[in-house]
């Protein structure tokens, strides 16, 4: 048993475990156990009860998601598992750590998920720029094949699985699970309408589960050590551990596996070493670029989906971006707006045409010439690009930092508008 199921094998100062080392460290035991003793329904129940929530950002209960996949005789024969490894959310660097640090753990997790939904083909949708991960995963897949852990009739269980690595070509929207499916099918990566949900009609119209890398890496532990253990890992309401990162002007930026429920302060001060000398904490985005700013007063909150939700933000990817007192909050949000504007897929109007307008306004704030009326335009867009208004969650994600910045940094905006540009640049 371990209290760091995700990172126990990871040591970035050396190469990741090969399959031999991995097995020696207890790797693939869960698969063996599962294939010998568990029916797909058993695994589904286990994951459901474990309380595992998706680590891709939305925090949707994984077992519940899986349960929508049609099973049994009447279900379509072909089903797919797809791993969302398109990590491109600004400030997010956790899936990279898992894939570069312990590629076999992901494969092991995939086997469990694929077996549960009885998918015999699984794709890893990997971000094109993750070259190191590509190399390591390719190698790991080959190794697993070599040891009979992939392919036909795995370990005599009658279960077949092929894992195929797909590398993308750089678009944030491909991380949105339905856009990802379109991309995988070789189409323009515009998202799809839901319903129908991918669990019912996904890749090539077949039932499909899309899960985040980290989500899947939780599975071997759950199968190996059970629900009690898994729940016990969390300190608060949520079960398990979470990869948490900190970037920005802190002494020791990085990514760590922490129990869910750990106070944010512990992450920022103990793990990341606190702010760099001469810098004060001004605010932080708790879970990547599409979450709302939290303030120093929130440091004692715990890393829990609900707790952070109640404070008006989201745990999302768990990778925190720190805004210090010498960095312009308007500039920071402007940077995010430029990103979201460029990464809009161009399908729906509010996002495609709204974000570039916002981006223009931020550029004007920066250069000088911003207008008081620009604030109204920004405010209008908060609702207009909000949840349900746009086709997918990209634009609402973009509105999170913007909306909270408009609340928390009014004075800074005011300074930009009335002071002829960015005070930090003047």
């Amino acid at each position, binding site marked *: 048993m371990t209290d760091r199921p995700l990172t126990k094998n990871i040591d970035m100062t050396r190469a990741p475990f090969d399959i031999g080392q991995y097995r020696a460290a207890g790797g693939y035991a869960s698969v063996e156990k599962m294939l010998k003793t568990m029916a797909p329904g058993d695994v589904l129940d286990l994951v459901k009860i474990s309380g595992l929530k998706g680590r891709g950002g939305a925090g949707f209960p994984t077992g519940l998601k899986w349960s929508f996949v049609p099973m049994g005789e009447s279900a379509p024969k072909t089903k797919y598992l797809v791993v969302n490894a398109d990590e491109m959310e600004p400030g997010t660097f956790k899936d990279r750590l898992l894939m570069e640090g312990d590629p076999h753990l992901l494969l092991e997790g995939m086997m469990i998920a694929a077996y549960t939904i009885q998918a015999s083909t699984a794709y890893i949708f990997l971000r094109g720029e993750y070259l190191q991960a590509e190399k390591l995963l390719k190698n790991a897949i080959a190794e697993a094949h070599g040891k009979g852990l992939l392919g036909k009739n795995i370990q005599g269980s009658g279960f077949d699985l092929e894992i195929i690595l797909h590398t993308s070509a750089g*678009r944030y929207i491909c991380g949105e699970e339905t856009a990802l499916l379109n991309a995988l099918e070789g189409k*323009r990566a515009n998202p*799809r*309408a839901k*319903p*129908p949900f991918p669990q*019912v*009609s996904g890749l*090539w*119209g077949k039932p499909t589960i899309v899960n985040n890398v980290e989500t899947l890496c939780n599975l071997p532990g759950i199968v190996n050590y059970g629900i009690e253990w898994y729940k016990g890992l969390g300190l608060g309401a949520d079960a398990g551990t979470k990869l948490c990162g900190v970037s920005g002007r802190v002494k020791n930026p990085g990514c760590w596996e922490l129990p869910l429920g750990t106070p944010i302060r512990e992450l920022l001060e103990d793990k990341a070493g606190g702010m760099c000398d001469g810098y004060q904490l001004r605010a932080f985005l708790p879970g990547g670029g599409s979450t709302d700013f939290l303030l120093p007063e929130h440091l004692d909150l715990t890393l829990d989906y609900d707790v952070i939700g109640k404070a008006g933000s989201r745990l999302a990817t768990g990778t925190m971006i720190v805004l210090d007192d010498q960095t312009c909050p308007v500039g920071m949000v402007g940077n995010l707006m430029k990103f979201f*504007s*460029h*990464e*809009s*897929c*161009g*399908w*729906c*109007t*509010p996002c*495609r*045409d*709204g*974000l*570039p*307008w916002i981006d*223009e306004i931020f550029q*004007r704030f920066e250069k000088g010439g911003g207008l008081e*009326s620009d604030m109204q*335009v920004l405010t*209008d*867009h908060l*609702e*207009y690009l909000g949840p*349900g*208004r*746009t*086709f997918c969650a990209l634009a609402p994600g973009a509105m999170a930092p913007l909306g909270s910045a408009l609340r928390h940094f009014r004075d800074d905006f005011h300074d930009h508008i009335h002071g002829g540009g960015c005070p930090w640049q003047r």
Partner: protein
Amino acid sequence: MAKITVDGIVYEVNPQNNLLQECLSHGLDLPYFCWHPCMGSVGACRQCAVKQYRNADDKTGVVVMSCMTPASDGAIISIADAQAVKMRSNVIESLMISHPHDCPVCEEGGECHLQDMTQMSGHNYRRYDFKKVTHRNQNLGPFINHEMNRCIACYRCVRYYDDYAGGKDLAALGSHHHVYFGRHEEGTLENEFSGNLVEVCPTGVFTDKTFSEHYTRKWDLQTAPSVCTGCGAGCNTTPGERYGTLRRIVNRYHHDLNGYFLCDRGRFGYGYNSSDRRITEASLVSTHDDEKGVRKSLTTQEAQRQFDAMTAGDVVGIGSPRTSLENNLALRARVGVKNFYAGFSAEQQRCVQAVIAINREQGLHCPDIRTLEQADCVLVVNEDITNTSPRFALALRQAVRNRASQLATDARIPLWQDAAVRELAQNELSPLFILSPQGTRLDDVATDTFLGTTAQQIALLAAVANIIDASVGNAATDTHGEEGARRIASALITARHPCIVSGISAGSEALIHATANVARALRKYSVQSDAIDVCFAMPESNTMGLALLMEEGGGTLDDALQRLARGEADAAIVLENDLTLRTTPEAIDAALSRTPAVVVIDQLHNEFNARAQLLLPSTSFAEQNGTLVNYEGRAQSSHQVFQADAALRPGYEWLTPVDPLSLVLTTSETILYHSAQTLSVLSGAEKLLPPRTGIQALMKSPRQSHRYSGRTAMNANLNVHEKKQPADRESAMSFSMEGLPLQKDASLLSAAWAPAWNSNQAISKFQDEINGELKQGCKGVHLLQRTLEPHVAARVSSSADNSVVYFIDHIFGSEELSAASPAITARSVGAYLCVGEADAQRLGLQQHGRAEISSGAHTAQLPVLIRQRIAPGAIGIYCGGEINRHAFANGVSISAVAEDSNVLVRSRQMFSELVISDSQQGRG
């Protein structure tokens, strides 16, 4: 039926539909862009936002897209809710940030859905003060303009062009706010239905290039409901005129036929109306010794006098399948039934007669175009419908998607969820089998295309029929044929709604019988109704009408020409007919040489009418009223759009002299009314005429919109006095803006308009529901009744037709009149010969080189196109208005012509304009 509440009012709805569609069906004004009645919803534009409440107690509600939300029973929504209104105004504001606001110079202005929606959504002040995104435009060929700066990225163009019409060369390119809709490289849009982009695009990105060349605002066009003369499908159109010339053609909704879409021949083929080949005055070849052979112009009165004088004796009258019943009836009346002859080629007449008999047979049913779309298994026999009756092809592209609809229904995905349905179905298509001598443009969606000569097709059909019902047809002679026949037969048998489509272009009666036999055999498996759908495309706009008329007496063209050649007539009147398209040069020469006087009434100069002594200019379809009968036997009225120059007259006016007693000129209406009373084939046709009672009898329908401008100034350069508007003594329409408002009476609906709806999308205001029937208006009158007992026809032997030469049709070029339109000419190619690779080798022919073909005394040199997809042994000839088909119809001998490289280059260039499909693979 379910009920929904919209802003407090309860409406009955069909829960299979979405909220937007139901709101529009109930006449509510709700803005939208990406949704289209034929293409469903994708939720991209977000313009159709409404507020939806969970139940009566829910006071907050959420904003949803009405096009993406089912109209489920009990749904409570609000269009007027402040948040929904705000959302819609935000969307339109966004859409307009990079729009050039060039309405004053934009061809779409005044009939622009974007203008309408901008008004409706309440956007009038521009807050965006940054640089607009701009694009470079592409030259998309002779039909379509491209002005990308006007784009609002609704994605309708690519959804229509690629997903609906099967186009391959228009794509969404780029991303975020730089999305671009165009080709990967500049060039002519290949798809035969590209013109619909003009109407599908809600703004002015894709506009009609032919229209731009002589542009007029929609409200300044004089219009009338018309019927397309491009082929025998009978699509409904709205031509528009200004200052005496025809300016454009747009689609006119017909529930059963063309729906919202036309083909490019129909839309862009009007240019001949003002081409320099138009006959603009009457002329007579002088017989005086001193100026023998000189053609001299005549005034209308002189011409009429000459005409009457020349045709006072024994006259032969030859009718026309490309002009109205009225014109043919007038000719028939003038010359008498026994002197009236059909203007078809002999084999064509036999074929149409065979088709009529099939159309009368109980147990068979001639599907309209909408019914074609609903077929779940289609067999196309020989006819290259994309090129002969193009609108059928667009319908079959929808038919193959019925498999997707079935899968979606099973998976409980609403059919309007366009993307989801496509995703679910992937490449699964309903079966479509094609028998053809060469690869066709529908092959990409066909289950299989069986390449074969006419004889081989007949054999395969016989084998199919035989498998279905052993009492019909013949067993296949080889195992390969057997296997193919089995696949076709089993697909047809298992289909709920099978449909067989053919035509008469092969000129083979045997093929028609063999085709009908498959349908007859199928009768015993018929599930849905007791009749099997089988239809035959007709080449010309009134082929069927003329053929029906011939049932009431009259001879064939051969009879006429033989009679003339025997010198048994004093004169011949040829009505709108280029006889070189109907028979051999020898037959024409023989006839003309013995006929003292030949009078031709026609629209365009051609080689044949150059030989007429008296040439009388006739009005075009847009300049006269007339009735055309389509392939189903559906008679439809085509209304005069504008008055032609006084020198031009409709055929019936030339032909019917003034009634000396009443002094009333015969009108098209009286001709039809009278004939409907006296000729049994036309009985019922009088229903096409406007009611003789009620308000319509008192007031006319205006051809001009209530905004028609400049009327008082139109002739000011000639005379400061406002010219009196011409009176229409013929029809229920007037050449003015006064009369019955559309909102009161839309039975003569040409250009749809409703308050706040200036674009063609106003049509929804005139439908009983979205995609439904027009609330008013006439869908035409079916002249064919199913009166013949079902029967099993004689087996057809494949040796009944052994021709290896087949004649190729092209959408751009094969129809006589449209071919003379500049835009169509730009897409046309000259005559050529087409063979397969093996045959080319055998004959020593080289790609793009020339071949000499000869048959009897006739020879011609043609560029050679070697195709991959062509039946071995088959020889295709495209006549291209250059060579006489009948001269080569009975087999040809072929030899290669030694080539210099110039010729190769020239013909390569010619073929580069040709769009054909020649891929080995069907639908992957």
